[in-house]
């Protein structure tokens, strides 16, 4: 199994490690709920180095990304990031990615479990193009620091940063050199909170993790480590899709409620199929469900309307913020309106569930 450069740090912190997309990753340190609450109220640091970091240079770099991405990459300006899907010819989602434009190159961050597949896909579709793809997943660390106290804590723990952090806009980034180390800092994340994601060389990343989590004394709020367990409950409350749950090769961006990351007039792999689905309207839609009682609906639980099976749960958890059982599911478009009462078959028991607007949780601005 692959390990990130922070593996020894996780071991020292007593993390519980699991296989995630072929990587040995921390699922929790102190406890999923505690880590979730700390992220919503203060600031947490997550090792997300397992995600793929692919850099594109050469005259055709933009052309290749515009060919494989549903989003119009030409419109992503220098210093900005754009969420996109990568689809097959049928419009099925191969991966969801974030593309960022530097002065001299483009970066695609993809899911750990899809990195090999995406690299192969890129290779196939770059035949004859002038583009160089560098996979820097192994040589760099990526951490996400998330939560309302992040911007203050980041500034106070790392002094003399060569720029003002709060000038980075949401889905923007800066890159440069600090203490002689090349880094990129993005104002982005996967938790529904304000926060940063940082890419830097392995050695420096380990030091930055230690510096950010250093005990500030009893009076001070600190950045605490959080694992993939809390990352999952946080993104679910924030209504964000996860590949392998809400997204897969049999789902298209329109059904997934991600039409906003699709250039509907564009010319890219899957464009024709996606246009057709857009025109006809998707047969199924991704919805949020709030369940009665305390049972949790897991992936593949069947959603019912009366006696008819009309959908399937993709993710479910007990929301620490709302104190309610929540789920995301694909249901027939006719039953997808917020306010509709459906039920979920949880191992033979029918539990009532109401369709609600996503996200379940939205931070106060």
């Amino acid at each position, binding site marked *: 199994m692959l390990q990130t450069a922070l593996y020894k740090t996780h071991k020292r912190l007593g993390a519980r490690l699991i296989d995630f997309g072929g990587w040995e990753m921390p*699922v*929790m340190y102190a*406890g*999923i*709920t505690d880590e979730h609450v700390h992220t919503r109220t203060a600031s947490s640091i997550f090792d997300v180095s397992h995600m793929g970091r692919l850099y594109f240079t050469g005259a055709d770099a933009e052309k290749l990304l515009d060919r494989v991405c549903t989003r119009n990459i030409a419109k992503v300006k220098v210093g900005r990031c754009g969420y996109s899907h990568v689809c097959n010819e049928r419009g099925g989602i191969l991966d969801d990615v974030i593309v960022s434009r530097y002065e001299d190159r483009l970066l695609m961050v993809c899911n750990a479990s899809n990195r090999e597949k995406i690299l192969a896909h890129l290779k196939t579709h770059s035949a004859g193009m002038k583009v160089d793809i560098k996979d820097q997943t192994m040589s760099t660390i990526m951490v996400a620091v998330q939560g309302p106290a992040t911007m203050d804590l980041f500034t106070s723990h790392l002094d003399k940063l060569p720029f003002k952090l709060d000038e980075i806009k949401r889905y923007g980034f800066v890159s440069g050199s600090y203490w002689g180390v090349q880094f990129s800092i993005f104002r982005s994340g996967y938790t529904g909170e304000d926060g940063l994601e940082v890419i830097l060389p392995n050695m420096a990343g380990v030091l930055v993790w230690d510096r950010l989590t250093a005990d500030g004394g009893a009076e001070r709020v600190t950045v605490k480590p959080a694992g993939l*367990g809390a990352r999952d*409950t946080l993104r679910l409350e924030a209504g964000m899709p996860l590949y392998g749950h809400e997204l897969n090769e049999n789902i298209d961006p329109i059904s997934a409620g991600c039409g906003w990351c699709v250039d509907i007039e564009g010319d890219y792999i899957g464009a024709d199929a996606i246009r057709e689905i857009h025109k006809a309207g998707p047969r199924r839609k991704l919805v949020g469900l709030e369940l009665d009682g*305390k*049972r*949790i609906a*897991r992936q593949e639980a069947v959603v019912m309307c009366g006696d008819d099976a009309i959908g399937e749960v993709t993710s479910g*958890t*007990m929301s620490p913020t709302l104190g309610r059982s929540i789920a995301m599911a694909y249901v027939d478009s006719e039953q997808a309106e917020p306010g509709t009462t459906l039920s979920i078959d949880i*191992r033979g028991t029918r539990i009532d569930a109401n369709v609600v607007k996503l996200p379940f949780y939205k931070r106060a601005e």
Partner: protein
Amino acid sequence: MGVPTDRKYLKSHEWHKVEGDLCVIGITQFAADELTDITFVELPSVGKEVSAGGAFGQVESVKSTSDLMCGVSGVVAEANNKLSDAPELINNDPFSGGWIIKVKMSDPSQLDKLMDGAAYDAQIGG
């Protein structure tokens, strides 16, 4: 540090402790830690028959749902209703306050087939 030696264990991490003619059943600290934060316990109703090797309920955590297994046959005499409002009792005090059911045993000799504390410790690598 070993598990309590005053009770018997199933491979699937349930402990069984005899109290008079009742057998108290819960899950071990190891199992509670593995499950992470427990959010819901499905308890059987009093009077329900349970059988050795069968499931008597379910425990749900943030991460997963697992069956609760029974090592003895009999009838449920009592269920820990505190768990309905405070399932985290199992995480915080699995060997005592986080007990799950009490069974009136039909055949107490079934307990002989379960593991003692030392054997269970060996299984979990403790």
